[in-house]
Each structure stands twice: as C-alpha cells, then as structure tokens.
C-alpha cells in the first residue's frame, strides 16, 4: 500500500537501501555492486577532482576507491553509512595521488590553514538578484571552479564534503579525522572566503547598470 510505503520510508530506524545491496555483494552478487557504483560514481569523481584538481588523477581515484571498497567490503562495519565509508576511501586515495604528484612533499588536510584571509568580511556590497544569470553556464562553471580552487586545501575539502556532497558535520569530521569544532571553524572560513571571492563577480554594479 502506498501509505505504508511512505510511512516506512519516513521511519527513523528503517534500514538504508544500501544495506540490502551490500548483503547481496557479500553473497557474491557482483551486479549489486554495479548498482552501488552507479549510485555514487558522480559524487566520488567530483570529490576526487576537488582534492586532486587533476582529471586523470580523479579518474584513477574513482576506479581505485570503488575497487578498494569492493575488496574491503568485509571490513565495512555498517555502523556508518556506506556512502560515508566510501567517501573516506576516496579522500584517502585522493590525498595519496596528490602526494605522488608532489613527489615527497607532505600533503595533509592540515596544511595552508594558517590564514586569516576572509575570516572578516570586507566586501560588503550586496549582490545583484540572481547574479549567476549574468553569466553563461560555462562562464559560471569556470568562475566557480577558479574560486574554489583558490581556497586552502584544508578548507576546500571541508566545504566540498559538508556543503556540496551533503555529509553532516559529524560525518565530515569522521571522514577527515578532524574534530567537530575544527570542521565547524574551517567551514565558516571556507564559506566566508568563497563569498568574498565571488563578490567580485556577483556584486550589484553601481549606477543601475546590469
């Protein structure tokens, strides 16, 4: 019955649909894993792109992350969501790629955070209504890419997981091995820095011009 379906979906203690798929994979059904890949591949690819900032690396990370998840599925405890577990694998794989590319230079999510930039708003001009309408899709994508790439690494990854990929503060903290207050502090500064940088493009122009 439709009503009971709606109620069961809304129930807090309901089993997540991934749980059944994981059980099928464990029982040897590879096609169930196929479904999990299709469900999350775009997110994993995006996260890998944001961290590595390199398309080839992101392709490799995506493959390696899913393969690792497949191999290690027995270790998945089920006390966190499969998606969060998968994201953690992808973040680690991405950081490893970055280290390889920077040959020997340590890469951690703690680097580059000793900045006060953007922590106090300076550009206080209001934005035009629907400011993104003033740019084509490709121009806008370029502005958004360039702007987020300019964020310190440790801020960017928090913003991506928390605000773009929908992880909670607690899940972001767990995934990155950070404390909840550290995630909160980075998120605020990431948001404010992005806002400050986007203001350049989106602020309302003087004199009534568009």
């Amino acid at each position: 019955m439709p009503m009971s379906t709606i109620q069961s979906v809304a129930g807090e203690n309901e089993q997540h649909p991934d749980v059944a798929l994981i059980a099928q994979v464990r029982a040897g059904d590879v096609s169930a894993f196929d479904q999990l890949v299709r469900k999350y591949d775009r997110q994993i690819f995006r996260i890998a792109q944001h961290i590595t900032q390199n398309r080839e690396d992101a392709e490799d990370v995506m493959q390696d992350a899913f393969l690792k998840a497949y191999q290690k599925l027995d270790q998945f405890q089920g006390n966190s969501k499969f998606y969060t577990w998968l994201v953690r694998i992808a973040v680690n794989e991405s950081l490893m790629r970055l280290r390889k590319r920077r040959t020997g230079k340590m890469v951690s999510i703690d680097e580059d955070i000793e900045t006060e930039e953007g922590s106090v708003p300076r550009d206080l001009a209001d934005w035009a209504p629907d400011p993104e309408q003033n740019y084509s899709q490709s121009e806008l994508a370029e502005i958004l890419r360039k702007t987020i790439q300019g964020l310190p690494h440790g801020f960017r990854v928090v913003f991506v997981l928390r605000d773009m990929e929908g992880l909670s503060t607690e899940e972001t903290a767990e995934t990155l091995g950070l404390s909840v207050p550290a995630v909160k502090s980075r998120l605020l500064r990431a948001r404010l820095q992005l806002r400050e940088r986007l203001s350049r493009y989106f602020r309302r122009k003087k004199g009534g011009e568009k």
Partner: protein
Amino acid sequence: MTCTEFLALLDDLIDDTVTTQMRADLQEHLRGCEHCEVTLNTTRKTIEIYRSHEIYDLPSSLRERLHAAIMERCKKGC
C-alpha cells in the same frame, strides 16, 4: 550583539542549529545591521550556487568507460 558575535554564529544560523532565543537575538542584530544582513544573504547564496551547479561533470562516455573498468576488475576478484 556585536558583528563579531553575529559572525561567530553565522553558520549555526545558516544551518538552522540555533535555539529560539539565539535566533531572536540574531534577528534583532540583523534589523539594525545592513552589513551583517548582506553577509548572511550572500553567504547563503554562495552555498546555494555551489550546490546547484555541476562544476566537474562526468561525461557519459567517460562514466561508462570507468564503470566497465571497475566491474571488469571486480569480476576478476580485483
């Protein structure tokens, strides 16, 4: 409430994790502070724009190729 105090609670306001009393205090500050109002609105807009625009797309052809590669290796036991 000062602007600095408002800013410290900006995320809680955006993420709707403030108490009723705190929300009332924040709104009271907003009524008299245009700068904080702009900061709040444009920060909200920043998040919304990043959420609603795909900036790294995964073209279907590449998606299928990666997908095939993953499944091929899974079937071989990796």
